[in-house]
């Protein structure tokens, strides 16, 4: 079965600092990968998805970006964090041979 690793688990960053959140998966090949954000008191919002290496689709225009340098690696980045970037970031996948979406443990980001 597939496993999703996210790190760090928690992160506190000052406004204007850069960000790099990493998601790696095991147990599947050629998965669809997703980044979601859950802001306080809100549901999950899709940020990016990727159907293959180097293929990134953005759902919401913002100061975040994503990259997929390897089949099982999905990175969320920012050059300059905003206060509004605070939230719970979840990486998810649909296995290469499947249709159910699985979620990672998440990273809680606080921007001060």
């Amino acid at each position, binding site marked *: 079965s597939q496993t999703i690793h996210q790190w760090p688990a928690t992160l506190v960053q000052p406004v204007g600092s850069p960000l790099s959140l990493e998601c790696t998966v095991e147990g599947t090949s050629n998965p669809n990968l997703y980044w979601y954000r859950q802001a306080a008191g809100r*549901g999950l919002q*899709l940020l990016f998805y990727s159907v293959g290496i180097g293929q990134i*689709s953005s759902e919401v225009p913002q100061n975040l970006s994503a990259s997929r340098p390897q089949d099982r690696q999905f990175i969320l980045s920012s050059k300059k964090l905003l206060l509004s970037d605070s939230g719970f970031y979840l990486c998810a996948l649909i296995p290469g041979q499947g249709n159910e979406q699985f979620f990672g443990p998440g990273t809680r980001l606080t921007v001060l």
Partner: protein
Amino acid sequence: AQSVTQLDSHVSVSEGTPVLLRCNYSSSYSPSLFWYVQHPNKGLQLLLKYTSAATLVKGINGFEAEFKKSETSFHLTKPSAHMSDAAEYFCVVRVRNSGYALNFGKGTSLLVTP
């Protein structure tokens, strides 16, 4: 576009009484619908899913949901609430045009009182 609306942001029930969490959907296609649960400081767990098979879907922990096309609803129910059911519940629809990503409702916070 596919979307869901959760009709209650908070629901409070007594332990042992039935649970009803309401969700309406909007979809141009026959939708794939899900319910997820999120316990405090934990990740998301899939409770159940509807993918155009049986309209009454049974999930884990005694939960079930009924797909009603005429009402565009997918309400989550449980006959008897346990204290451990207290959590945030999300109704979700799968979106065809975003790599089959999921579109989440805003969530319903379930409180179970003794």
